[in-house]
Each structure stands twice: as C-alpha cells, then as structure tokens.
C-alpha cells in the first residue's frame, strides 16, 4: 500500500510515510523565528547537534563521538565524528562548531539564545576537536546543546535559512508545498545508519477532524499529535491502528496573574488550587489522556517528585480560604482546543466556590501573546508550556506570571552551578516552593498521543525533545 498522502511518488518502490502535523512552519529558519513547528520538523532529522536528548531524557552523543568535562566543569572538549558531511558535500569540522556556536551570539534573534550566554569561548583544537569554555559551571549548558541552540550549521549553508536548510542529518529537505506539506528525502551521504524510509511527508492540518479522516482514509500514516482525544475511539481497531501514549514536557498551566488582585493574594491562589478537581478536569477536557502533575516538573526530568497531593480537591477548604468573598475574573485563554476545553471546566469548578471566571478566548498566537503574554493583561489563563526544563520561567519577575520570589531565583541559580546531585535537590525544592506558593495551578501534563497505522514502527513514545525524531521510523510490509 502506497500510503503517502502526497500522492507524488506514493506508489514508488522505495518506502515512504506521511505524518500529519498541526502547525505548519511559517519559514524554516529557527534561528530567527519562534515556534515549535520548525525544530519539530528539522532538528535531528535535518539539523544535528553535537549531542541529542534520548527517549529516557538522558543526553547521548550525536555529531560528537564523546566529550570530556574538565574538573572545574567549565571546559567541554568535544571529539567530533569523522566523515560527516553537510548536504551539498561540505565536510563537517570543528570550524563549523565554532561558526555555529558563535552565530548564536551574533546572528540569532531569539531571546532563548541567552541560555548560551554562559559560553565564554569556542575554539578549534584540530579538525575533529572543538573546545567550549564556560564562564561558570552550568548544568544547563549541555542540555541546551541538545536543543536547537546546539544545531550545527555549515559555513556555506546559511544564505537562505528560511527556505533552504543545510544540515548533516539523515534527511534533507526535498520540497515544500506551502499550506500543504513538507517532504524530506533520505540523505544519501548520511554518516550514520541510513534511515529505513526513503522519504517522509509532513502534512499539515489545521483541523483535527480533517487529520483524523486523513488517517482513516489512508491519506496519512501517522497522526503526530492527537488534538481531539475524544475521537480516539475511531482508531480502536487494533487490526488497523496503533495508539502510542507517552509523555511530553508540556505542562498545561492555569496561570494566575500574581501581579494584580485578586491573585496577588496567595490565599486566593491556593483556593483556586483546592477548587479544581484535576481528575475530573482531565477526564472532561482531554478525555482522561495525560497525567496529573502538581508542579512545573514533568516525570521525565530527574528531579521529578509527585506533588499532586499538595492541594487535594476540596471546595470547602477553598471557600474557607476565600473567606466568603466572591470574585469576578478575566480568564483569557488561547483559542486552542485543550485550553478552551479546560477553561470551561475550570470556569464551572471555580463557580462552585464563588469565583466567576469570564472566558475570553484569544486567537493564538498573535492576540494571546500580545494581550496576555506581553502585556500581562489577564487574571487567569491556560497554556501548555512545552519548553523542556522550563522551571526557570518562574524566576523571571517580568514574566507574565508576575511571580516574584527571590528565594526561588537563588535556588535555580545554585542548581545550575552545582553538581548534578545538588542540582536535583535544589530543583526539587524549587518545585515544592512553587507549589506551596500556588504560583500557578498545574492542570495536567500534556500527553504525547500518536496514532499510526498498524505496522508503522519506530514512533517516539515520549515527546520530550523539540523534534519529532524520524530516524527510526519505518513501516513493516
């Protein structure tokens, strides 16, 4: 069965697969354009870093065969793989490492580039050895190197990043039909194990139902992320479909504006946490798919602790905390399915304790970013914070949460500089602090829901990295 929905070459002998996605990239340049869509498609598949994040959350080698860390934990010496070539033929050397990491500082336009501010110098020792020295020890450094920040660019391949990505990965961009699909073909000169598929089509659907129908009718082989979990019953037939459910880094946060009344009052925030029946919320808003969490740490992070018991569902307690007062607040949520669904449940549950939340869905991303994220004009909001290891966002007092706790900031800084053990301990404590302060409420951990045709293998169970890793994807006959 030639399953590829693109139709183009769908029946050729070489194997290909079509994978359905929700958000299409606006362009292919993740050095200057925000959003998860670009790294999702390109990172690991087209661009590779020196290291990558394994399915278990550990950092594993990629373009670097190995790396050594100096005793003061400030110097990283990366030994590069031989015979790695960029598409187009240029060899990958330490010069490219220097070029790529310097470019982050000089050319990248995203705020997250500050994560690599910790780098002091990047130098080439020889063609296959690059040395990075840090200003101070940092646990986050290597992790950042596994994200898009660590992607390796060719010195001759950055002329038109928006349209012509040049990387070292197993796949290379073949064509892009804007508004429809991106096709990646296997890179014939790939240094590692050749991927099982000769080509992959990423098809984009704005409508969840349309994506479901496409899988049902053979238009695509995989739904990368189910947007309408209630519809999973359609794929219940194990003779035809398989469902993969894993975790993500995405905490669906009920953000409360700590910076203004009424949520500048810790008691009110705590009341909200008690007022919400998280189990019922998950069942109604997202068909029970996903995991309950009690703070800003997903279970795949080493410093995870189960904090779901901190604020058990207790409307009476919530009312008590409110002291008989009632509030009317603005709940401005992005117009995304999980947010709008959750908002309606939250509204009903808060109503039970005397908080009237007026839902105002805002167009995502533009209006939500503008109104809530940038201007901070909201009382309650709901958004899935998908970035990995993003506990730190609460440390920034100017962030839209308006949460400002010096102690929390200190814990985070210490964690980054300390040993791995210290890091874990500090972050556990930080997460507990957030929970106790009720800096926000954590509704649930967004599930990684993949549906695929029977016979498709190599699906990533957990979506904890920025990319959708196609390297192992294959199809049995």
């Amino acid at each position, binding site marked *: 069965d030639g399953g590829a929905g693109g139709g183009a070459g769908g029946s050729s002998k070489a194997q290909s697969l079509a994978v359905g996605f929700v958000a299409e990239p606006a362009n292919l340049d993740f050095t200057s354009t925000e959003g998860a869509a670009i790294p999702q498609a390109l990172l690991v598949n087209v661009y590779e870093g020196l290291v990558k994040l394994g399915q278990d959350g550990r950092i594993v080698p990629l373009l670097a065969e190995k790396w050594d860390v100096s005793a003061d934990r400030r110097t990283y010496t990366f030994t590069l793989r031989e015979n790695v070539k960029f598409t187009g033929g240029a060899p990958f050397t330490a010069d490219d490492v220097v070029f790529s990491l310097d470019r982050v500082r000089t050319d990248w336009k995203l705020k997250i580039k500050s994560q690599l501010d910790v780098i002091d110098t990047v130098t080439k020792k020889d063609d296959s050895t690059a040395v990075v020295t840090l200003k101070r020890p940092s646990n986050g450094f290597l992790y950042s190197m596994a994200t898009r920040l660590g992607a390796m660019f060719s010195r001759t391949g950055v002329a038109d990043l928006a349209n012509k990505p040049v990387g070292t990965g197993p796949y290379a961009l073949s064509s892009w039909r804007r508004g429809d699909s991106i096709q990646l073909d296997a890179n014939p000169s790939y240094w590692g194990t050749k991927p099982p598929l000769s080509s992959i089509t990423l098809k984009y659907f704005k409508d969840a139902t349309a994506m*479901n129908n496409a899988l049902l009718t053979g238009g695509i082989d995989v739904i990368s992320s189910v947007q*309408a979990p209630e519809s999973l019953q359609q794929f219940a037939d194990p003779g035809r479909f398989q469902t993969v459910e894993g975790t993500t880094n995405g905490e669906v946060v009920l953000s409360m504006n700590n910076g203004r009344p009424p949520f500048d009052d810790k008691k009110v925030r705590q009341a909200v946490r008690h007022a919400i029946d998280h189990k019922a919320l998950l*069942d109604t808003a997202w068909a029970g798919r996903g995991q309950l969490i009690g703070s800003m740490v997903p279970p795949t992070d080493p410093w995870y602790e189960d904090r779901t018991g901190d604020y058990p569902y207790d409307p009476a307690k919530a009312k008590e905390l409110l002291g008989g007062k009632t509030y009317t607040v603005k709940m401005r949520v992005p117009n995304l399915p999980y947010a709008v669904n959750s908002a*309606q449940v939250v*509204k009903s549950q808060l*109503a039970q304790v005397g908080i009237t939340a007026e839902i105002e*869905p805002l167009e995502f991303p533009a209006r939500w970013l503008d109104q809530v994220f940038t201007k901070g004009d909201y009382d309650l909001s709901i958004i899935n914070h998908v970035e990995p290891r993003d506990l730190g966002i609460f440390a920034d007092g100017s962030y839209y949460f308006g949460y400002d706790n010096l102690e929390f900031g200190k814990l985070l800084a210490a964690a980054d500089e300390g040993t791995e053990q210290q890091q874990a301990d500090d972050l556990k404590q930080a997460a507990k602090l957030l929970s106790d302060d009720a800096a926000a409420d954590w509704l649930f951990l967004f599930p990684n829901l993949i549906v695929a045709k029977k016979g498709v293998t190599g699906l990533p169970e957990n979506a904890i990295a920025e990319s959708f890793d196609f390297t192992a994807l294959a199809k049995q006959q």
Partner: protein
Amino acid sequence: MRGRANAGLLVGGTLVGLVVLAALVSFFWTPHDPTFVDAARKLREPGGGYPLGADKFGRDTFSQLMVGARTTLYVGVVAVGIAALVGTPLGVVAGMTPRGWLSELIMRVNDLVFAFPALLLAVMLGAVYGPGTLTAMIAIGVATVPAFARVARAATLQVMVTDYILAARAAGRRRPGIAVRHVLPNIGSVLIVQASVSFAIAILAEAALSFLGFGTRPPVPSWGRMLQESQELLFSTPRLALWPGLAIALAVLGFNLLGDGLRDFLDPKLRRIRAER
C-alpha cells in the same frame, strides 16, 4: 393586504416561531445550566431530565439548543438590523433621485462594499477586534447593506414612476413626506422579504464563522459551535452533531419559507422585485 396564507408561510412561521419561543423561554428557564460542566454527566445518553442527552462536558444538549436559539436570533436581528437601517435609507435616497450625484455615489460605494463579502469582512474585523459574536454580526450586517440598498432602490424606482407619487407631489407633499408616507409603505413588503432571506443567510454565515473559529466564542452556546465541537465525536456520538445541525437547517428553512410565503402573501404583484442573496 391581499392573498391567502399559504403552506410555506405556515410552516415557515411555525419554525421561526419555535426558534423565537425557545429563545424567549431560555431567558427564564432551561432544564439545566447550559454552560455548566459536569464530568459525571459526560456524554450522558438521552433520558431522565436530559431529553437530548449531554455532550462531552456533561452539558445538557437541550438547554444549549435553547440558549443557542438566542444567539441565532441575536445574530440575525443585529446583522439584519444594521443592514436594513443603513441599506434602506440609502436605497430609498438613491431611488428617489435616480439621476443625482448622490445616488451615483451611494450606488458606487455600495458596489464597493459588495466586493467585501461577509466572511471576508468577518475575518478582517476578527483580526482587528478579535473574533466574537458581535464582530461577526457587524461584519455580516455591513456586508448585507448592499443587498438592502439595491432592493430598496429597485423597489423605490418602481414606486417613483407611479402616478400616485405624482399625485402626492401635486398635492404638495415634499420629498421626506413622500418617502415616509408613500415609498416606505410600498416597498415595505419587499424589504420584509429581503429581511427574512438575509436572516437565513446570517444564520448560515454565523455557523460557518463559528466553524472557522471567527464566530461566537465559548462558552456562549451557539448552534454553529455546537456543531463544530461535536465533530470529533461524529462517529461515536452522532446525536451531538445531529441536533445543532437540524436546528440550523430548520431555522434557515423557516426563515426562507417565511420570506417566500410573505412575498406571496403581502403582495402578489411585488413578486417581480426579487430579494437578492
């Protein structure tokens, strides 16, 4: 008023009456709070106080339909209201001075606005002011102005060449008096027909906008959004799509039949002046 009530008028009137009734009653009573989410009642089957069952949020479908009727009427009334209040005077003025520059200007602007269809305007307005029922209604209303202006103008032109207008002028009636006492009553039935047809179109447009996410925003119940939300359960719980779909179709059918019926009922002679879509 000549002509007998016909079957279309009867059926249309009944359907529209039902929508109005549901909307009115919903102000005072619905079986349940249509927006209250209750996990325990999720996808509850019809029966026992839930005549049409509950949706995935455990909200009572019947109550939502009732309140949705309100949204539907609200959309129609405001959109058609804007269109009629703006379009009719423009059309009458243009029709009463067919050769003047004012008339020319009105009709040119009219043609220009006509080039911005409702959906386009709604998307554009939605982009500026955020999507929502009011934005949608204004967009639909503005986009419907040209239809009213054209129909009003065509009908006014027909009225203006009659001898009774000459007679009124000979009797000493001035323009405003003629417009109010002779033109408006005589083009009234055409306008009523146009209004009911536009009403039906507005309902459809709102449904389409809700489907695209530019219409009524949650949690306010709207038939269009109910339909959109029920999509993912179309296979397992088709009734969730059935009821709002049926409600939209019947309401639109009702207004269309009412329009056709009124056309025949109010004045058989005016059949020739057709309402525009």
